C-alpha cells in the first residue's frame, strides 16, 4: 500500500518534470519572437547599403525614406501589386508590424547621396523642369517625402523606375503621367534625362 503510494508520487513528479522541460524548450522561441526594427533592417543592407544608403546603382537608397511610402511599397510587393525582381518574395516574409518597424528605422537614417557622375548642363535644364512640373509633389528638389525620394538617388534605378511607369509595369499615378507628359512636351526627348541628371546632381 505504502510502496504503491510512493510509486504514484514518483510518476507524478516525472510527469511534472517532463512538462516543465517541454515548456522550457518553448521559452527561447517566445522571448526572441520580435527582433527590433533596427535588427530587421540589417538584413536589407546587402542590396540597399548600410543603413539604407545604397551603393549599387540598380538598388535605390531607402535611408530617410518616408515611412508610409516604405510601407506602401512593401505591402504592394507583398500582394504582388508592384513590379519587382526579388522584393515580392522578400516582402512576404514580414508581418505588418515588422514592416512598420523597418519603415520607422529607415526613416530616421541620414541618406548618403549616390556618388555618381552627372552633366551639369543637363542638370540645370532638369532643375527648371523639376521646378515647373514636379516640385509640387516632389517638394524640396525631390528630397525624401510622401512622394518618394528622387534627389541623390541612383540614376540607373530612377531610369528603370520611369521605364516601369511608362511601359505600364507599374501603376502610373494619373497626375504624375499628366505632369511627365507635359515636361516631355516642353523639354523634348532630353527631358527625362535632364531630370535624372538634376536629381543626381543633388549630392
Amino acid at each position, binding site marked *: 500500500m505504502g510502496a504503491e503510494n510512493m510509486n504514484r508520487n514518483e510518476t507524478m513528479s516525472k510527469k*511534472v518534470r517532463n512538462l*516543465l522541460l517541454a*515548456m522550457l524548450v518553448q*521559452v527561447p522561441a*517566445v522571448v526572441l519572437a520580435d527582433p*527590433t526594427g533596427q535588427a530587421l533592417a540589417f538584413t536589407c543592407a546587402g542590396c540597399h547599403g548600410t543603413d539604407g544608403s545604397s551603393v549599387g546603382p540598380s538598388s535605390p537608397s531607402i535611408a530617410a525614406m518616408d515611412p508610409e511610402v516604405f510601407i506602401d511599397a512593401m505591402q504592394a510587393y507583398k500582394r504582388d501589386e508592384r513590379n519587382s525582381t526579388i522584393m515580392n518574395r522578400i516582402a512576404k516574409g514580414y508581418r505588418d508590424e515588422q514592416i512598420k518597424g523597418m519603415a*520607422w528605422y529607415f*526613416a530616421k537614417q541620414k541618406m548618403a547621396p549616390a556618388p555618381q557622375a552627372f552633366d551639369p548642363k543637363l542638370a540645370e535644364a532638369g532643375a527648371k523642369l523639376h521646378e515647373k512640373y514636379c516640385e*509640387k*509633389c516632389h517638394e524640396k528638389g525631390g528630397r525624401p517625402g510622401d512622394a518618394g525620394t528622387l534627389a541623390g538617388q541612383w540614376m540607373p534605378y530612377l531610369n528603370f523606375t520611369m521605364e516601369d511607369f511608362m511601359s505600364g509595369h507599374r501603376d502610373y499615378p494619373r497626375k504624375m503621367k499628366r505632369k511627365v507628359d507635359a515636361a516631355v512636351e516642353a523639354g523634348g526627348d532630353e527631358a527625362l534625362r535632364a531630370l535624372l541628371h538634376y536629381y543626381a546632381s543633388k549630392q
Partner: protein
Amino acid sequence: MSNSLSRHLAWLFMSALLLICIAPAQSTEGGVGMVLGERIPEGFDPETGKRIISNERCLTCHGDEAVKTDVRDDGRKVKIFVHSKQIQASVHGEQECTSCHATIDRVPHREAPQVIVGCIECHKETWDKHKDDPDGKHERLKVVNEQADNFMQSIHAQPSKQDQSRTNATCYDCHEAHNIGELGSIQRKEKRLKNPEVCGRCHEKQLADYRTSDHGKAVLEKGDSKSAVCSDCHTTHAIDAPETDKAKLAITKNCGDCHKDAQRTYFASYHGQVHRLGYTNTAKCHDCHGSHKIKGPKDPTSEIHANNRLENCRVCHKEANENFLTFWPHGDANDGEKYPGLWTFKIFMQILIFSVMAFFWVHVVLWLYREVKDRMEDKGFIEDLDHPDVVYFRRFPAVWRWIHGLFAIATMTLILTGTTLLFSHTGWAKAVVVFLGGTEMEGIIHRTAAVIWLGIFLAHLFIAVGNIWRKRDTFKWFGSTSMLPNMKDMRDLRDMFKWFLGRGPRPEFSQWTYWQKFDYWAPFWGATIIGTSGLLLFVPEATAIILPGWMFNIATLVHAEEALLAAIFLNSVHFFNVHFRPERFPMSTTIFTGKIPIEEFKHDHRLEYERLVESGELEKHLVRRPSRRADLAASFITTVLIMTGLALLSLVLIGLMTSPS
C-alpha cells in the same frame, strides 16, 4: 508531501513562464509612438500616429492662383483654390488645414479626396476646454454650440430624401468655410446681404419669389441689410419644414422682431391669442400677408390688397362675405386716432372696471377694518356658545339654490376657458388649454357653458316674472322683500361708511341689503354686455351677414373687459361680502342649505325680522337647523366653489400682472 511540493513548483514555474511570455509583448506597447523598439519618426504625431501636414504644404497646390481647378478621373472640374489670406483673416486663421480636413493623411493625395469635414465636435471640445477661461476669448463658442445643437435638430440635419447617406444641408453649405468672420466683422455684414443667395442655391423657387417681395427688393436691389432676409424669419439654425407647428410658431414670432406693433395688435386679437397658446390653426402673419412674395397693401399683386384679401379669409372662414373685409385684423384699442370707436369702448370699459373695483375694494378694506376692530372690542355679531343655533330662517327656496349653484359653475367654466385666450401669454394658460384638449375643444366648452349660463339667466327671469305675475294683485314693487333699489339703500350705503369710520352705528337692513341687490342686478348688465358680444362672436360668419367686420373687434374687446370685471368682482368682493368678512368667515352655506341661523338673520336683516315678528309671519319662515350631513354637503360644495374661485382669481391676477401690454 512531495506531491504537493512538486505541484507548487509546477505552478510557480508556469507563472514565471507566463511572465516571460507577456513581458516582451508589453515592452513593444509604447502607444502608437513605438513599434519594435523604434520610435515614430519626425513628421508624425506621436499621440495619434498621424502624418503632420503643414498648411504651407497644402497651399503649395491649393494656394496656387495659377491653377485654381483640377480635373477628376470622370472629367469633372473641381475648384481646388483656397484664398490663404482670407483664411488667415478668418476666425479659423490659426487652425491647421488638417484640423478640419481630418481625413487628409497623404500629400500628394493617393485618391481624389472627398470633403469630409465635421465642425461640431471640435467646437464642442474647444468650448468645454475654454468655457471657464477668465479672458472670455472663447465666449462666442457658447452661441456656436447652441446653434450647432439647433442645427442638429433642424430639417437641414435630417437625411436627404434623395440620398440618405447625407444630410439635407451641412455647416459649410451656408457658412463660407474658409471665410468665417468674427462677430461684427466685415465678413458677417456681407454675409447678411448674401443670405438669400446662399439659401437660394438650394431653394431656387423661394429665392425667385423673394426677389419680387418688398423684403427681397430692399435687400437684393437696394442693399438694405435691415430688411428681412431668409434667416430673419426662418431662424438661422433651428430651421424646420414650414408645414410643422414649430416652424409656423417661430416664423410668426420672428415677424414681430421687426414689425413690433403689428405683432402686439395681432396677439391682442383672437387669431393671435390662439397662436400664442401654441396652436397654429388660426390665421398667422403669412396666412394673410403671404410669405416669400410679401408686399404692401397697395400693390395689386399683394395678398393683402383689398381685391385679394377676402380670398385669404375664406381659407378658414369658408362662408366669409364682404363684411369680413371691414374687420380690423390689427385693430389697436390704444390707438385713438386710427381706431376711435375701439378706443372709446376700451376707455369706457376701463373706467367702469376701475371705478367699480376701486369703490368695492375700498368698501371691502374699510369693512374688514371695522369688523376686526369691533371684534377686538368684543362688539358685533358673536356666536353664543351656550345657546347654539337651533332655529333657522328659510331664506332661499330650492329653485334659487339650484340656479345659483349652476350659475356659479357655468361662470367659473367661462372664466377659465375665456381667460386662457385673454392671458395666452402665460404659462398657466398654455397648460390649461393642453389639459382641456386644445383650443377647439376649449371653444366648444366655452360655448356650451355660455349656452347653459344664458339659459339659467333666462330661466331665472322667467320664474321671477312668473312669481310676480302670480302675486300681481298683492305684489309690492318696493315692499320689504323687494329686490329693487330704493333710497334707503343709498342711505344704508352712506351709514355703512359712517360705521366703517366709527362715526355711527351699523345700519339695519331689510330682507335684502344694498350689496346683495348690487350682486343681483350686476349680472343683468353683465349678461347684456357679455351675452350680446358673445353671441356676435359665437358664429362669426352668421354675424357678418348683418353686421360689419369691425363689430368683431368691438365685441371681442367688451366681452373680455366685462368678463374680467365679473371675474375679479365675484371672486374678491362677492366672496368677501358673503364669506370672508370676520362675522361670516370662513363661509356662509346659506345659498346651498337655503337656511340662515335666526340670530344671524336678526343681525343682518333686523328690519325684516322685526316686521315679521310684528305681523306674526315669522313663525312660517322658521325651520329646523340643517341636518349634519346637509351641513357638511353644503360646506363641501361651498369650499370647492370658493377654492376654485380663488384659484381663478389668482390666474387672472397673474395674467394681468404679466400682461405684455
